[in-house]
């Protein structure tokens, strides 16, 4: 990746104490913004990305030349309307799009830090991004929003900084990573770590990367983002550019070919070690445990308005887990709205063109901003 010149970033000078006990300082945090910050500085929305996202939420990602991961939701006239709001999105620490991560070159060795990078948590990611408020001199954000791991960051943000956002939108997420979530992440990590090119995480990042392992990790994860019904309707048992089975192990079925394609595209834009670190951070996420078994305590100090959204066909972060957050908020009389959107598109729904989902967010933000 040689396009780092197109990226904005801040250098966080003051030390950040990580959950693992280590301290980091003088590290880069890459970000992108959309829309304009108004004079009162009350129209900023901090958007958090999911596992494989980055700071390029909208428009065309200048590094991959593909659409931003939340292009359906962020932009002029869209759900997060950049004609009205100033949207900020940062690459999480541990990521591979310019923020401090395992792919960052260590000036002492001139090699990527690799697995010498400290294990980070969702809490660490959020604390690093909090520096963006100082950078833009924003006293209080209008909103924090994100889906999946982005939603976890939303919850952690409100818990850490109770009155720094008027509105919080955690979407398709959980307050505590389930055994099933951890299991799928471990599968991905094992795929990477069993790739001969992984070399205990000390590959050079130039040639011979653990691409095969990373592609398998992506393929397995991709299945968890879709619903059975969605897959069946899109692919069924359709064959890939052939009229009959070939009695071999090539991609006979369209679904096989699709997954292989997804895997191969992914390795071009993502670092295998980042995948390890970020999935680990998700697995360690347990906001309930952080508050001695009582999730309500995480939000006790907050006046933030919550709007929680889940999707009917999302079996990775199912409605029941989103509802646990609603229940914890209701237990303390917090201002909370919740809706489960009907869709066959699985966990990925939050990234896709789901009109009900997008229009409800748009209207909610527009009315709440003036309330």
């Amino acid at each position, binding site marked *: 990746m040689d396009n780092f010149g197109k990226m904005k970033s801040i250098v966080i000078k003051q030390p950040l104490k990580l959950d693992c006990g280590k301290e980091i300082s003088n590290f880069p945090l890459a970000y992108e913004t959309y829309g304009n910050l108004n004079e009162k500085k009350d129209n900023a929305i901090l958007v958090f990305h999911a596992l494989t996202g980055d700071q390029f939420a909208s428009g065309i990602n200048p590094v991959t030349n593909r659409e931003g991961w939340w292009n359906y939701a962020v932009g002029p006239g869209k759900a997060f309307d950049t004609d009205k709001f100033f949207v900020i999105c940062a690459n999480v620490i541990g990521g591979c799009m310019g923020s401090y991560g395992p792919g960052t070159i260590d000036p002492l060795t001139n090699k990527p830090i690799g697995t010498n990078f400290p294990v980070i948590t969702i809490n660490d990611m959020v604390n690093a991004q909090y520096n963006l408020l100082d950078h833009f001199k924003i006293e209080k954000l209008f909103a924090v929003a994100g889906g999946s791991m982005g939603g976890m960051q939303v919850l952690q943000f409100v818990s850490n900084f109770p009155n720094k956002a008027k509105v919080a939108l955690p979407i398709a997420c959980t307050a505590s990573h389930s055994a099933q979530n951890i299991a799928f992440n471990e599968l991905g990590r094992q795929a990477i770590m069993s790739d001969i090119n992984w070399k205990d995480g000390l590959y050079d990042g130039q040639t011979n990367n653990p691409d095969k392992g990373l592609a398998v990790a992506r393929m397995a994860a991709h299945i968890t983002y879709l619903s059975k019904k969605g897959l069946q309707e899109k692919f069924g048992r359709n064959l890939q550019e052939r009229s009959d089975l070939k009695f071999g192990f090539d991609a006979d079925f369209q679904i096989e070919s699709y997954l292989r394609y997804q895997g191969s595209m992914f390795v071009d834009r993502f670092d295998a070690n980042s995948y390890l670190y970020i999935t680990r951070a998700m697995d360690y996420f347990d906001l309930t445990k952080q508050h001695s078994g009582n999730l309500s305590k995480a939000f006790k100090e907050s006046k933030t*308005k919550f*709007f929680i959204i889940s999707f009917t066909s999302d079996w990775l972060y199912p409605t029941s887990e989103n509802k646990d957050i*609603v*229940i914890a908020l*209701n*237990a303390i*009389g917090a*201002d*909370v*709205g*919740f*809706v*489960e*959107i*009907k869709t066959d598109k699985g966990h990925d729904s939050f990234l896709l063109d789901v009109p*009900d989902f997008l*229009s*409800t967010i748009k*209207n*909610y933000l527009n*009315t*709440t901003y003036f*309330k």
Partner: protein
Amino acid sequence: MKEEFKVISELVEEKSRVLDVGCGDGILMEYLSKNKVVDVRGLEISKEKVKKCLSNGLAVVEGNAEHDLKQFPDLSFDYVILSQTLQAFMSPENVIKDLLRVGKKVIVTIPNFGHWKVRLDLLFNGEMPITKNLPYEWYNTPNLHMCTIQDFYNFCNNKGISIFKTISLNGQKTSKITSSNLKFKNLISELGIFLLQK
């Protein structure tokens, strides 16, 4: 039913916390927020209606009162409102019990099956009555447990629920219901509005 909202709004004290159970499109919630300084929340079973409420910035949670009232702590609201939905529950008795647990006071409005038009319909036509407040056929009605103002009054007495106020609504006209005029009001009211406490 604007008149019903007006009565409910008058029953609710300023600066109170209100939960509207079965809040529908949120019209009552908006009416209350406009006319009173109240902190109002909603619970609604229909996704379409919840989306509408949230689009208007109302704090509404999708859920079914028969299971999802459990999430609200004891006495966490000053008022819990149940407007014309009691008859649609599988177990109205349990819902009322939960409402009285969650709310310090409970406002329940009942479409009155004892209204004279309903009685006449059944008497002369021998058919299940269809009225403005009860517009369904017997085979598609969501109303599983119809009752009269008298029935609900008896229910409260039997269960030891205190009734603070009962108001009759007939067209635009409101009037007080007391134990002495109950039989008559049960005949002429389209709607009964009850203010209850455990």
